């Protein structure tokens, strides 16, 4: 077993361990932290597979951003452990059947087609080889159409996030110093010219009204 294989199996076993802890540990915050460990191990596995750009992006995007989101969701939901565990035995048969089905499907597919012997080792590259460069040369020329579609998917995500979580808030009363300074007398004050009524005429009108 070469050192590379050792590193691969080490990180892969850490990944499996962390993934198992994510679903079994009780405290949701700790489970989120184990998910961070799982992401890091997955990034290390990808580096041993020479996908360096994907590995760095996994750490940047998932550990940096998605985990923050998960923690917010964990905080937002106010999870009550006792309530969650109440339905455990009730949902066990359904969940068990689904889990067994999934495992059977995966074994069925993998056992026939997937084994390490069927895939040649990736060729080892020179020290100055850049995975990112190769990716860039393809992504912005050959695959430019999916790339632009990605932009629209992100746009949809922006609009959906705003539509789901924005609340209508009261219009704020805010001071605008520019408008304050530029205000002229004519904007605020209206001088109405009118004839002054004589005192006697005024009294007559009052008498008429009553």
């Amino acid at each position: 077993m070469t050192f590379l294989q050792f590193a691969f199996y080490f990180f892969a076993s850490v990944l499996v361990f962390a993934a198992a802890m994510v679903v079994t540990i009780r405290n949701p915050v700790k489970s989120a932290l184990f998910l961070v460990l799982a992401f890091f191990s997955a990034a290390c596995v990808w580096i041993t597979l020479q996908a360096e750009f994907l590995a760095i992006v996994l750490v940047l995007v998932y550990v940096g951003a998605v985990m923050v989101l998960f923690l917010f969701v964990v905080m937002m939901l106010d999870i009550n452990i006792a309530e969650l565990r109440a339905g455990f035995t009730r949902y066990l048969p359904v969940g068990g059947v689904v889990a067994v089905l999934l495992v059977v499907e995966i074994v069925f597919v993998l056992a026939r087609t997937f084994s390490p012997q069927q895939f040649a080792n990736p060729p080892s590259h020179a020290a100055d080889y850049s995975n990112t460069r190769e990716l860039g040369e393809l992504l912005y020329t050959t695959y430019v159409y999916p790339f632009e579609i990605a932009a629209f998917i992100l746009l949809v995500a922006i609009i959906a996030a705003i539509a789901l979580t924005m609340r209508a808030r009261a219009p704020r009363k805010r001071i605008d110093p520019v408008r304050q300074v530029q205000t002229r007398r004519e904007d605020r004050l209206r001088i109405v010219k009118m004839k002054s009524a004589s005192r006697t005429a005024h009294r007559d009108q009052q008498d008429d009204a009553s």
Partner: protein
Amino acid sequence: MLANYFPILLFIVVGLGVGAVAVSVGKVLAPHKPYDDKLAPYECGFEAFEDSRMKFDVRYYLVAILFIIFDLEIAFLFPWAIVLDEIGAFGFWAMMGFLAVLVVGFIYEWKKGALEWE
């Protein structure tokens, strides 16, 4: 190529080692005499007022989602910046189209007030 990553692996190993040694030495050598009052949670000298699990405002979630989206956009920019001199004008304008679509989203969220915090 993978040999380039060996120093990083060494850093991880050394970092884990230093962290583990520091914690375990503290655990072994430090005096350990707990009693009830010492272990009780407190908040600025008072008893804890409430549970530490409190609900967050949903607006944090909105900020986090918008952050993820623009984080992804940055991830697309890295390979583009590296190969910019090889992909020519076509690649340049491909990225400009990508950014234009996201600028539409940015203007939308700005005008909608999603970036405002009252």
